[in-house]
């Protein structure tokens, strides 16, 4: 149970980073930290005590394997996270070119 609580603490660290950091790049990194904590929770959900890696060996039947479905989910979600981070970074450097700063206190053109 402590493993899940540690992953949730990592989630809260990422959330704290999004709320309090002022640099655009640090906000993007905090979002990535939050994503990775969710991936850890997903993989740990599929863990079976004493299980082997889920590659079936046809000679030895009747083994206990770890659940492979959350691993497949996390592989896909890692690629989605890559796309999200790449989009954020592209927007961040274009914002730097327009405003000459990464500070979100300066980038406040839209109000109301």
């Amino acid at each position, binding site marked *: 149970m402590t493993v899940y609580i540690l992953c949730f603490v990592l989630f809260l660290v990422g*959330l704290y980073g*999004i709320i309090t950091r002022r640099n*655009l790049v640090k*906000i993007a990194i905090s*979002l990535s930290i*939050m*994503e990775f904590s*969710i991936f850890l*929770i*997903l993989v740990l*959900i599929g863990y079976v005590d004493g299980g082997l890696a889920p590659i079936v060996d046809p000679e030895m039947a009747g083994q206990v394997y770890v659940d492979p*479905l*959350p691993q497949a*989910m996390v592989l*896909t*979600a890692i690629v*989605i996270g890559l*796309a*999200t981070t790449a*989009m*954020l970074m592209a*927007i*961040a450097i*274009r*914002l730097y070119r*327009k*405003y000459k700063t990464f500070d979100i206190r300066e*980038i*406040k*053109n*839209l109000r*109301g």
Partner: protein
Amino acid sequence: MEALIPLFVAIPLISAFLIIILGKLVKGLHRILGPATLLALLIMALFSFTGLNQAAHIYTMGGWSSEGGFPIGIYLVLDGFSVIMLCVINLIGFIALFYSLSYIRKYTAEANYYALFCLIVAGMNGVVLSGDLFNLFVFLEVSVISSYALVAFGVGKTELEASFKYQVLGGLASMLILLAIGLIYWKTKTLNIADVRNVLDAGYSKPYYIFVQVLLISGFGLKAAIIPFHAWLPDAHSSAPSPISAMLSGVLIKAVGIYVLIRLFFNMFVFTHEIAVVFTTLGAISMVIGSLLAIMQWDLKRLLAYSSISQIGYVVMAFGMGMILIVKGDNYPAATLALAGGIYHMINHSVFKGLLFLNAGALEHRLDTRDLKKMGGLSSSMPITSSTSFIASMSISGIPPFNGFFSKLIIIIAAIDGKFYLLAVLAIVVSIITLAYFLKFQRYAFFNKSPGKALEKIREVPFAMSFSMVVLAFLCLALSLLAFPSLREAVLQPALQVLMQSELYSTTLLGI
């Protein structure tokens, strides 16, 4: 007809990447391939709508049918509710794409725009058709990431800032959704929507699933821009190019926000009274606050964006009322009426909000401004824009004989039938406030005295833009015919059957 179902996702994917590759060799290919793809999708959607026959069509990807009662493949499901959403998505997509044939010439890199547009339609088709939780998440991310890129398409200062804000909040919402999917998998050991309902019918622990439902309401509520998750919507929808605003506000917040909420809460989770009350309260608050915030706006597209929040509040409130009435179990006709009102208002809002954003785009195309104080007296120089926006404003405010009147009337009658008198009064008050700010839009944009000589030389917008606006205005009038009971039954009855008899979803799917 089952063979058509995977083509809804495969065809836009192929054409998006063909546009990128062949766009460098053949100039102007994107202007032919984009509209042709969406026209093909629209014809396929209307064909599926007429050929539905009251049964759910299931497509098992890869041919993995169920073994011993447990579905082990990924299902694509086409039933009454999905086919209505498919028609709306592809119709508004085709019209917005046709409109952007002349609007996007101002921007550079046109080929990328058409490729991203095809991807966003592919993602939304996938979300609406999916019968599996993680498949839904993947297609949700495809469409949402394409929309991040499209909001920032004209790379000016305001667009980039709006896109960054949208991305951070959208990424947070996607993480909450993924966490909720993980928690559902932990307890039920399956990802198929019908199978989860099967497992939940056998008994479940209530506090755990209330936590999961709250996570899902937060995540999908942020995609659907319900108050208090609405902070990204005014910036993103006002800074995007106008056809993309029409797609975002007209289709995206419904297809990946409200549709998924309704599908999961009606057909996957067992109803609880607390969650139904939460739904209704959030809907009522969105309705009121959205309209109050819209009155103060002088920027045209921000006004339309806040009004989107208000109208989505109507839809969520209608579905919430239906849930409360089904849980109490004593007033099924009122529940059916509330659900019918919700679905009808969803269809109507796509049409008239799309038309309003296209009008705002036409005004911006000719005048280069979105500020209402700088416009005036355009009703004589831009007749098509003026008359179509008048029709749309009358529709959204609920003036007969346009379609908005009938859908709001159905919601108010359902509220009175189900004894929600406070909600009926709020709906009427918000409708009057909606009329107020749309009259403000009409007066300042079209019927005021012209503030200067510079506005005398404005001509009408090109053919592609006016054709799209006229088609949507015609639909505003045509959809009001759905108020007649016979037509309403023919169109909405399959969807209502899926939602009212919510257990049938899992039993029909697993029996096959």
